[in-house]
């Protein structure tokens, strides 16, 4: 009545691979993922600053989980769908969401894909099959199962990637989604970012078992646990999972072990519930540094190239922020349309009232 779920790990903190490991990710893709990880880290930092300056109202940095999000997305195909929790900006960047699109969203301007209707950090884009984030935890899990079932009905070579974290895995919707996917053999990868905290709540208050992975076995589901500070473990596992799903074998659960190095969000102060020492320990395991070391050791990248790339990146980000700042916010019509496929009389009445009232008030 006991079993072990091993943690898959190939690349260590010094950028060295385990004996006998054969890298499967191409050099090009690895480099691209590395760049997106740097981009994610830099944008996260900037958004935190912009929040302090009241330019954005809210941000959720993903420090520590850049490989987990970016490289998992790198192992997927463009036709695959993504469902996010919220801390997966890295994944949507990898999928093709541009820096400008991200800034427009974060600043909730007229070009925000969500039309300024949600909080910041609720990205998404239809053309990318990247489903818009919703704040309600875990609701995307059964939705991802249904989306994957649609792919199965169509017989497509496509899978659904469902991101969520260990705290959200306590919700009833987690159970609902995993069980329904297992029963319907829907091609979905449930990718659980176990980052040890849910706001202030440590894992020991979240569950009593050995993490999230053993639950997969309970649903009769193929299950992996990976070191999610290790780009190679992530890539190989997600690729394997994708093949397994796409071949019609049903869903997969991956528990991706990392750590939320930053605060939960710009509204959070983690010093109230954990020590700097604990954080420092994880900082040292940085998933981006590992890849950088590997790249340099293997002559795929150099410090000079790195500096050059980083400077250009900073410039692009600042430009995008400036452009985003200059754009107006959406008009008040965006409050009333797209609630339904049409505009019923009560919304029309209310829109007319507000237009008139705003005019009156401005006199």
């Amino acid at each position, binding site marked *: 009545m006991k079993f072990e779920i091993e943690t898959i790990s190939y690349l260590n903190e010094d950028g060295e691979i385990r004996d006998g490991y054969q890298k499967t990710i191409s050099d090009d893709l690895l480099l691209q993922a590395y760049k997106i990880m740097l981009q994610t880290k830099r944008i996260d930092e900037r958004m935190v600053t912009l929040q302090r300056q009241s330019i954005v109202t809210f941000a959720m940095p993903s420090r520590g989980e850049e490989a987990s999000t970016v490289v998992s997305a790198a192992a997927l195909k463009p036709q695959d769908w993504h469902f996010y929790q919220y801390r997966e900006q890295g994944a949507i960047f990898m999928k093709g969401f541009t820096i400008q699109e991200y800034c427009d969203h974060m600043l909730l301007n007229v070009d925000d894909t969500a039309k300024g209707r949600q909080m910041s950090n609720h990205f998404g884009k239809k053309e990318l099959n990247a*489903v818009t984030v919703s704040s309600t935890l875990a609701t995307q899990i059964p939705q991802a*199962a249904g989306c994957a079932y649609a792919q199965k009905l169509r017989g497509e070579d496509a899978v659904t990637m469902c991101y969520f974290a260990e705290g959200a895995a306590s919700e009833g919707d987690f159970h609902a989604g995993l069980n329904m996917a297992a029963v319907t053999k829907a091609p979905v990868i449930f990718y659980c970012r176990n980052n040890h905290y849910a706001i202030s709540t440590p894992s020991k208050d979240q569950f009593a078992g050995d993490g999230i992975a053993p639950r997969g076995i309970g649903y009769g589901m193929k299950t992996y646990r990976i070191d999610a500070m290790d780009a190679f473990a992530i890539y190989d596992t997600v690729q394997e999972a994708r093949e397994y799903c796409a071949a019609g074998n049903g869903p997969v659960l991956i528990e991706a072990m990392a750590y939320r190095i930053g605060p939960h969000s710009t509204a959070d102060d983690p010093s109230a519930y954990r020590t700097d020492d604990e954080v420092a320990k994880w900082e040292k395991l940085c998933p981006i540094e590992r890849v950088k070391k590997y790249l340099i050791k293997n002559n795929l990248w150099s410090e000079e190239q790195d500096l050059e790339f980083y400077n250009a990146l900073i410039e692009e980000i600042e430009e995008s922020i400036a452009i985003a700042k200059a754009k107006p916010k959406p008009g008040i019509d965006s409050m009333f349309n797209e609630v339904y496929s049409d505009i*019923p009389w009560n919304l029309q009445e209310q829109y007319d009232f507000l237009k008139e009232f705003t005019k009156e008030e401005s006199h």
Partner: protein
Amino acid sequence: MKVMNIIEAVNDALHLEMERNDKVVVFGEDVGGFGGVFRATKGLTDRFGEPRCFNTPIVEQGIIGFAMGLAMNGFKPCPEIQFADYIFPAYDQIVNEVAKSRFRSGNSFTAGMVIRTPYGGGIHGGCYHSQSPEAQFLHTPGIKVVIPSDPYEAKGLLLASLRTDDPILFLEPKRIYRASKCEVPLDDYEIPLGQAQVAREGKDLTLIGWGAQHHQNLEAAKKAEAMGIDVEVLNLRTLNPLDIDTIIASIKKTGKCVVSQEAPKTMGFAAEISALIMEKAFLHLEAPVFRCCGFDTPFANAHEHEYMPDSPRVIKAIKDTYDY
């Protein structure tokens, strides 16, 4: 034309639409081969295969979440919730997710679906096979609510619902699932959403209802005639969007109104109708709008007869309002 009951009409509409539109997928508890506990989905698995009509595990929040994923990815799900009383585990998925999806995603991900579920009292169902939860969904922008009152409406409204790109809660009056019978065209037809039916014209008082209660209202109107009160009976068919024009036109004619619903009085949909009528026809009102409703209690099995706002209670409401 064929005489059908409501179950048969629903079943007929589902067959027709699944034939016409291969994106329609039907599922829910016991909905597959067995055809559902009320047999509304009978024959669908045989005809269209298990991938398009199947049993789900018992998890309403999962059923609706799953439906939403299908809808976002281009399908038209028609999930069944076995009893309306069991829709509440899915309440979050419905009001926070399904209803808001189009809006919050900037029109990117829509969640058009038809959630079918039997509702209402009168079958010895006690607290949990009797509720009429329409009001609990009408405060939430983004979801439309449709309630047929007979087989003709069931088919026509269900077909129209399945062709509307919005989430729709389709409440079926289970007490009259088999008792309500009428001629139903075998062909395709739609009853447009958002249009109330003037089921009976009258000049003295407007009586408003929906679903199974509409039949109590018709009966009451007939009896009221004998007492010299000429009642106009409106059958709403769609609660959101509400056919406010038909309601207000009728009030302007009669000056008096009774709204009758099975659900508890407090915060039932009759409250909204009453408030709207006051806002839009105050100067035409000769008496306060009367709400003839279920009581503000859970649904007690031993007293379901006393609980129901049946035609005798509606008649009393009509008289009291007429004599005001």
